[in-house]
C-alpha cells in the first residue's frame, strides 16, 4: 500500500490537511484572478470614459455614431442606457441615463397632477418632497442592491439635469428663479415679465398681492396691474381672488402661500 493513501486513521488526517491546502491555493488563485479582472475592468472603464468624453458631442449629435457606440457597448455586455447617476461612467458622461429619464417621468407626473392646484408652477422644495414620497424607500434600496449609485435622496441638481433631458420633447418644462426661489414651470405659455414680478411679490407677502402693491412697489399703472392680475386669475388659473378683503380685491397665489 502507498504510504500517503495508506489505511489507518492517520489517512483521514492527511486527507483533510491536503484538502485544506488545496482550498487555500484555489482561494489565492481566484483572488489573483479577481484582482486582475478588476484592474482590467478599471482600465477598460478609463478607456471607455475617455472615449465617451472625447466623442461626447458626436455621440449626442450623430445618430449613426451613437448607434455604433451602443453596439460596441452591447457587444462587450455593457448597457450604456442603464445609467446610474453618481459614480456612474459613460451614461453620465454622455448625458443619457435611464435614471434621468425615469426621474423626468416622475417630474412630469407630479407637475401635471398638481397643475390645477398651483397653476403649473411648483416650488423646487415641494417638488422634491413629493417625488421622494412617490419613489418610496424600497425602490431606492433595490437600486443600491444592483450597485447603482447610492444615497437615495433626490437633489435639486438631479431635477435640473432631468428637466434638461426633457427638453427635446418640447413640453416646455423649465426651472425659473423668482425672487430667489426656484420654481419648476410646467405651463407651456411663457411666463411674462409682469407675472414673474407678481409671483416674486406674492412670495415676499405670503401669497397675497393687491393692485395697490404693484402700483406702489413697481411703479406700474393701475391698468397694467389689473390686467396682469386678471390674466393670472382668469386665463391661467394661477391665483385665487378674495372679494372679502377690506382693502378691495386681493389676489392669492397658492404656490406662494405657506401651508402647514
Amino acid at each position, binding site marked *: 500500500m502507498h504510504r500517503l493513501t495508506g489505511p489507518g486513521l492517520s489517512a483521514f488526517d492527511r486527507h483533510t490537511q491536503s484538502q485544506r491546502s488545496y482550498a487555500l491555493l484555489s482561494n489565492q488563485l481566484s483572488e489573483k484572478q479577481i484582482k486582475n479582472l478588476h484592474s482590467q475592468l478599471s482600465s477598460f472603464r478609463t478607456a471607455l470614459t475617455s472615449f465617451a468624453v472625447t466623442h461626447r458631442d458626436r455621440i449626442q449629435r450623430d445618430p449613426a455614431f451613437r448607434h455604433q457606440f451602443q453596439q460596441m457597448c452591447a457587444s462587450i455586455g455593457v448597457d450604456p442606457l442603464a445609467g446610474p447617476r453618481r459614480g456612474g461612467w459613460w451614461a453620465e458622461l454622455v448625458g443619457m441615463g435611464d435614471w434621468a429619464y425615469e426621474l423626468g417621468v416622475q417630474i412630469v407626473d407630479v407637475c401635471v397632477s398638481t397643475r390645477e392646484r398651483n397653476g403649473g408652477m411648483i416650488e423646487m422644495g415641494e417638488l422634491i418632497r413629493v417625488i421622494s414620497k412617490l419613489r418610496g424607500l424600497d425602490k431606492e434600496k433595490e437600486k443600491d442592491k444592483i450597485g447603482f449609485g447610492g444615497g437615495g435622496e433626490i437633489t435639486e441638481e438631479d431635477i435640473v439635469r432631468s428637466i434638461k433631458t426633457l427638453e427635446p420633447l418640447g413640453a416646455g418644462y423649465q426651472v425659473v428663479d423668482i425672487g430667489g426661489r426656484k420654481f419648476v414651470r410646467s405651463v407651456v405659455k411663457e411666463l411674462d415679465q409682469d407675472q414673474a414680478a407678481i409671483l416674486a411679490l406674492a412670495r415676499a407677502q*405670503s401669497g397675497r398681492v393687491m393692485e395697490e402693491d404693484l402700483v406702489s412697489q413697481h411703479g406700474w399703472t393701475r391698468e397694467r396691474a389689473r390686467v396682469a392680475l386678471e390674466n393670472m386669475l382668469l386665463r391661467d*388659473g394661477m391665483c385665487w*381672488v*378674495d372679494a*372679502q378683503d377690506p382693502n378691495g380685491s386681493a389676489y392669492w397665489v397658492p404656490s406662494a*402661500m405657506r*401651508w*402647514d
Partner: protein
Amino acid sequence: MALSTHTTSTGYLLPSIHSAPPFFTQQPNPTTLSIATEQWIRLILGYARHRKLFFLRVEDAETPGNDWDEVLRNERINRKLLPTYLSYILDTMVKKNLAAYEPPKQTRAVLLHWRLPEEWAEALHEWATSTGQLNSILTFYDITDPPLESSLTGIPIPLLRKAIAILAKTNRAQIITIADGEGVRFFTGNK
C-alpha cells in the same frame, strides 16, 4: 401668515384651506372653482357627519347663530362663505347626489347625504334585525326616537322614507297604513 388646521369647539378638525381667505369667495376661473367647491363639499359632509346634521340652508350663511357657524364662518381671518356661493355649492351637491333639495321644488335648503340613502337603508334593516323587530309593525316615531338610542335616532322622515322605499324594492320592507298615520314592517329577505 401660515395656513394651518384648526380644531373647533365641537372637536372638528378644519383643513388648512379653511384658513385661506380666498376660499370663502366664489372663484371666477372654472377650474379653480371646481377645486374649491370640491373642498367645500368634502368639508360640509365631513362636518355634517361629525355633528349629525341633516339640513343645510342658504340662510345658514346669511345669519349667524346656527349649527354651521364654525364651518361657514372663520372669525380668525374675518371671512364668511357668501350666500350666493353656498347656493352654488348646494346645487353642485344635488347634481352629484350628495344632497337633495328638501322640501323639493326650492333651492334654499338641502337634505345632506353624508350617508347615501342606500347606506341608510342597510343601516335601517340591520337595526330592525338586531333589535328583533322584524315582522312587527313600527311607526316612524319608533324608528326616529327609539327607547334605546340608535344610529337612526333623529333621522329626518324624508330620508327615512327614501330608505324604506329602497328596502321595499327588494321586499325587505313594506309601508302600512295604520290608524294614526303610517307604519312600516320589515322582513328578513335577502339582498
